[in-house]
């Protein structure tokens, strides 16, 4: 039934090619009108749905403690120390200018001129900005130095231990664009002259810079990939018109799918931004149609008959490879990570469109080709003379004639690769998505070295019974203080801040700045009055950020020196251990962007395992249905699995972080690499079937060599084209693109080669088992 419909479709297209082209162009224009509405989303938060537990709890913590979602950190470094009039003057000017930037939450910018400093002088307590005016005399400068270094709330936060780096923390209003603000700040610091170096770091900078780069990459790399494929194809067939037709095929599918995505109001994410390149590569599957067409044309000498015969021969494998690819991508729809879901749906849709085009638009375009150019192009398509065909035949011969050696060698590689996969570490680090020399990554590195850390996590310490005012008790404060000291012993933790730091500071100040009182006072009453005193003159946010209004909960700020998920995991484990050793009716809950990254990271791992298993099952079922035999499915499956394990083994040995793009690829790779097996086995069995009817039957080995030489050439062309498209991504400035590019290029080439060697070897070894089943079926 299916076959019938497709064939009438092909015939219809061959009979009315102009109509087919016109309608296709019309629909394409329709989807194209959606493009101006495109918008990107690079906020990692949106990886998980707003209803996910971590987002709900993080939002609640942000509301309770009046926290900002996003913070930019500006670093000012001077090799000879920042405590001089010149540098301090610049800090003052820059801070004043930053306050004026729209999107900056001016009221809570923390830097030398805005941060609250609690001091006592001549018996007068004072809460005021640390540096209202630039010190004019050496005496004033000394005073500032003393105030800075005697207050551990400042050291490691707004000034580095060595006094060479100062920082300004710039919180952003909800929805502000981090890159735009970072660019404005970079513009500001660019106007300053002098010896100072400036760094702009923080999650929103990385995120929004990534978003901007993404758009650029899409605009540059998708067309470049298209161009590379176009050239490679031209070299393969030497026919401009057909190369153009194939390229149009890909472009149409891209425009339809991206148009649909944008039209549905969905933002473009890092994954979906790669969709055009994927679709371009998947479109190369129609190379099998072209491949066969040239061979058929040589035999038939009639264009229309050649088209119909071609579709008859390759229709089934082409349909099934499309199905397998679409299935591989559809598996992603079952994931928890939203952009991955969207990407899966997007490419699955595009793949279906590509296949419909293969049966309509592509045959229609064939009719426009002049007989002469087909003649010219098909000159080279002769198994006996083509170098490629000869080489492929030899490759298959190796498997067919020396199956044991081939299989045993494979087993050795397999074992080594499995060992490699155990070394894989799952980690998503957005800052490391930039190249090492990039401005974003440099700023992050410098700031993490000098100061407490640019990645922020929170630990909310709350009364178990929800007892109000509990945080004001000295034992609760001592508990928190102990927790802070324990956390600070971790290598990735740069600095922690909590209400304890304020209480201790006030205690000291109220006791004539006596160092001995830099401790938690004895009674709850004192703590309450200290904090009230503090709130009488400080910024409301100072306290709001560290305690909830009813004093049931305290929020400990944990600054981390790395965006790696393992840093926050270490913090949580340490906190749990601390809680076990020091039982008090308190509970500790993690929050903040660092915690989110950790949760999301685990989610990626889970998704990957789930997706990979699901893909394994689905692909096997598709193969079994396609071959109408689970045994043949096993044969087709082996090179595929082998390829994937080899690549993951290599990833493990290279020590490359297993991040979201790679884990997504793990599912897809199955769906894409299986194409070669489908083509090979289908055509091989067709050949055997045809051979049975013929007078002098071929041996299995001969049939294998033929399959490798003729349809195999299509497979190789497909692999090379696919690899060519993705090789462009190797030159991208963002590492996820490079990773994806390298991954796909190696996977395509490897799986094609393995397909040529291992399928023949397995067929020869298992011939009895395979063909016995076939006999029984009959």
């Amino acid at each position, binding site marked *: 039934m299916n076959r019938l419909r497709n064939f009438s479709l092909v015939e219809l297209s061959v009979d009315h090619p102009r109509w087919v082209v016109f309608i296709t162009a019309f629909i394409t224009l329709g989807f194209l009108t959606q493009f101006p509405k495109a918008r990107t989303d690079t906020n990692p938060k949106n990886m998980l749905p707003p209803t996910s537990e971590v987002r709900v709890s993080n939002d609640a913590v942000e509301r309770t403690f009046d926290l900002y979602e996003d913070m930019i950190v500006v670093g000012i470094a001077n090799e000879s120390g920042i405590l001089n009039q010149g540098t301090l003057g610049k800090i003052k000017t820059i801070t004043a200018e930053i306050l004026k930037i729209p999107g900056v939450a001016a009221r809570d910018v923390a830097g030398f001129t805005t941060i609250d400093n609690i001091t006592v002088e001549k018996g007068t*307590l004072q*809460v005021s900005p640390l540096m209202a005016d630039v010190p004019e005399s050496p005496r004033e400068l000394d005073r500032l130095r003393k105030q800075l270094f005697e207050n551990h709330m400042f050291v490691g936060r707004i000034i580095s231990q060595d006094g060479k780096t100062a920082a300004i923390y710039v919180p952003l209003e909800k929805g502000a664009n981090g890159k735009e603000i970072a660019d404005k700040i970079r513009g500001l610091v660019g106007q300053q002259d002098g010896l100072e170096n400036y760094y702009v770091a923080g999650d929103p900078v990385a995120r929004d810079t990534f978003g901007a780069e993404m758009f650029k990459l899409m605009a540059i790399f998708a067309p470049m990939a298209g161009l590379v494929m176009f050239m490679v194809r031209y070299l393969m067939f030497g026919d401009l018109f057909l190369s153009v037709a194939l390229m149009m095929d890909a472009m149409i599918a891209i425009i339809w799918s991206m148009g649909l995505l944008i039209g549905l109001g969905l933002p473009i994410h890092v994954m979906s931004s790669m969709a055009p390149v994927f679709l371009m590569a998947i479109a190369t599957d129609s190379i099998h149609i072209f491949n066969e067409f040239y061979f058929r044309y040589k035999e038939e000498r009639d264009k229309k008959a050649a088209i119909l015969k071609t579709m008859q021969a390759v229709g089934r494998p082409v349909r099934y490879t499309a199905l397998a690819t679409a299935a591989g991508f559809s598996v992603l729809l079952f994931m928890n990570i939203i952009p991955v879901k969207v990407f899966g749906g997007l490419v699955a849709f595009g793949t279906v469109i590509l296949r419909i085009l293969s049966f309509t638009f592509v045959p229609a375009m064939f009719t426009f080709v002049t007989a002469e150019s087909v003649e010219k192009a098909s000159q080279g398509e002769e198994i006996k003379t083509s170098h490629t065909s000869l080489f492929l035949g030899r490759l298959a011969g190796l498997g067919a004639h020396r199956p044991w050696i081939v299989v045993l060698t494979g087993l050795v590689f397999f074992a080594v690769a499995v060992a490699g996969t155990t070394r894989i570490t799952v980690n998503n680090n957005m800052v490391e998505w930039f190249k090492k020399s990039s401005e974003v990554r440099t700023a992050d590195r410098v700031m993490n070295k000098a100061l407490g850390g640019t990645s922020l996590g929170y630990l909310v310490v709350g009364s178990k019974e929800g007892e109000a005012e509990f945080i004001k008790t000295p034992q609760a404060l001592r508990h928190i203080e102990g927790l802070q000291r324990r956390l600070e012993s971790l290598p990735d933790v740069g600095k922690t801040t909590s209400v304890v730091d304020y209480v201790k500071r006030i205690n000291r100040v109220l006791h004539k700045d006596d160092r001995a009182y830099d401790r938690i006072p004895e009674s709850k009453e004192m703590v309450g009055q200290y904090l009230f005193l503090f709130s*009488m003159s400080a910024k409301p946010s100072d306290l709001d950020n560290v305690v909830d209004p009813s004093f049931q909960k305290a929020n400990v700020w944990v600054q981390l020196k790395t965006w790696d998920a393992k840093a926050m995991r270490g913090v949580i484990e340490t906190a749990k251990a601390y809680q076990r050793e020091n039982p008090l009716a308190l509970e500790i809950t993690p929050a903040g962007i660092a915690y989110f990254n950790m949760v999301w990271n685990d989610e990626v791992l889970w998704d990957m395992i789930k997706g990979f298993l699901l893909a394994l099952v689905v692909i096997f079922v598709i193969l079994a249905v396609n071959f109408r035999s689970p045994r043949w499915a096993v044969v087709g499956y082996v090179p595929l699995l082998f390829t994937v394990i080899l690549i993951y083994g290599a990833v493990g040995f290279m020590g490359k972080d297993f991040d979201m793009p790679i884990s997504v690829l793990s599912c897809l790779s199955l769906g894409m690499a299986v194409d070669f097996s489908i083509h090979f086995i289908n055509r091989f069995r067709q050949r055997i079937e045809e051979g049975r009817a013929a007078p002098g039957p071929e041996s299995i080995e001969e049939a294998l060599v033929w399959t490798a030489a003729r349809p195999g050439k299509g497979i190789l062309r497909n692999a090379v084209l696919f690899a060519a498209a993705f090789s462009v991504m190797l030159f991208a400035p963002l590492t996820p693109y490079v990773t994806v590019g390298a991954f796909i290029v190696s996977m395509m080439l490897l799986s094609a080669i393995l397909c040529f060697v291992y399928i023949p070897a397995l067929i020869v070894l298992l011939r009895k088992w395979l063909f016995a089943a076939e006999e029984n079926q009959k």
Partner: protein
Amino acid sequence: MTKLIFQTTVAAAALVLTAIAPSSAQTADPAGIVRKMHRAFFYQGDSFRARIKMTLTGASGSERLRELTMLRINMPPGGDQRYFMYFHAPGDVRRMAFLVYKYPARESDRWLFIPALNLVQRIAAKDSQSSFVGSDFTYEDVSGRDVEADEHKLSREEEHGGKPCYVIESVPRGAASYKRKVSWIDKATSLPLKEEYYDVQDQLFKEFSAGEIKEIDGVPTILKRTMKNLKTGHQTVVEFSEAKYRLALKPEEFSERALRNPPGSWIK
């Protein structure tokens, strides 16, 4: 110094003048309107007492309460004032007391009594634009900002809540927590009905609104006022009860001794 004397003389003269002149007098002098507003809002009666309830609401809807008794006495002729605040709630700050000597054109003197340490601590008032006891009101909002610190302009006259008002735009001459402020001043009572504060980025960030207005001892008094921070989502509602004017308060009762032993007759 001479400047200061001149300023206070002018301020005092203005106060006297406005007190004598009938309230319906049409004046187009914006600084004069603001001065009159100060007189009606911060200086009404010679002395004043009220029980004050402050409700601080966070962005998450959480509430914090502050309860205090406030006493005020005017110290003519210079426009000086003394404030005494005694805290009843929250529990752990009970008995904390706050004393302010306010001078129109220079920084006030402030003392706080910390019962847990039995300590009277002098507090610098360098930043009069900082928050008053953690609320959305600043010290200036509570006790008034020097009229001369801003440049005032009458932008228009319009009705607000059915009452004819002057709309005054005030731009600080020096550094301030706001870039400009727009006030709706009731022509009849000279009380501010609404104030809008714009930040460095010239965005509206804070809004004052007068709620219930009642005549107490013949003086129109705002009994409920709200300050809303539009950027943080915080708001503070201040409610006056047991308000009374022209009490027999003595300046000596506003002293360090009173901080430790608050005058029982005024504070219940």
